[in-house]
């Protein structure tokens, strides 16, 4: 939630250090980013969609499904190639990003729960 809030808060409050931090993980091209208050988000549309999808997946409590996750990864890869070769659509980036974030969230939640429960310490 803090992560998503920082992405949206950066343009509103002109938080330069947030842009600096996110520059490590995103190209931050203004032409490929959503805008608010005249400034672009701290990350591009694809990244924003993945993070918002991840947050939505956590809130919705989606069940972990490896098939959905594989399909989401394949969709993102296909969309990336499609954008390079045929058509670069923001709508496709949003949909594929949301799907990837939402399907990843339950697995990450389980992984974190297992770490916190000490499962890893017992089995290693």
């Amino acid at each position, binding site marked *: 939630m803090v992560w998503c809030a920082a992405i949206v808060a950066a343009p509103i409050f*002109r938080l*330069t*250090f947030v842009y*600096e*931090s996110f520059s*490590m*993980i*995103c*190209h931050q091209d203004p032409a490929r980013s959503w805008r608010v208050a005249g400034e672009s988000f701290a990350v591009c549309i*694809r*990244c924003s969609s*993945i993070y918002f999808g991840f947050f939505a997946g956590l809130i919705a409590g989606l069940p*972990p499904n*490896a098939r959905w*996750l*594989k399909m989401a*990864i394949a969709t993102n890869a296909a969309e*990336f190639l499609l954008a390079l070769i045929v058509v670069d659509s923001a709508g496709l980036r949003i949909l594929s990003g949301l799907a990837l974030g939402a399907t*990843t969230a339950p*697995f*990450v939640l*389980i*992984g*974190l*729960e*297992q*770490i916190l*429960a000490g*499962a*890893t310490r017992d*089995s*290693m």
Partner: protein
Amino acid sequence: MALGLLSSIPIISLGNCLCCMWVLGGGGLASYLLMQQRPGGITYGDGAFGGVLSGLFGSVIATIMSIPVRFLAARTLLSQKEVLEQALRDAPGLEGPMRDFLLQLASPEISAVALVATFISNVVIFSLFAMIGGIVMVAIMEKQKKQQL
């Protein structure tokens, strides 16, 4: 090791702009190697733990690699610093120590502050994304050990 090297070499490190590709891949690789060691499968927690460890190790490598890279890219960093100075002049409420801190980070000079800040940001980003990479790899390979929570 691969995670740290790929994330610190200029141009190649741009791969991280694609959803932190090298870091996710590094975490996934750590998780994959762990699966090879344990034919019985691993838990998502194991994948996450392996990913975090690879992220920590990678952040050390990336920070060490950032020293020669700063030397080699001094001219580019200097121009970046000028752009940042201009941006900070336009941004209200960013005066004083915070402004000096940000300018020091963008400076081509090697300082303890810049190295510590680079290391901390690397640790946070790399550990987080490598952990996700590790978990996703376990999910994709479907080799997780059944575990009761």
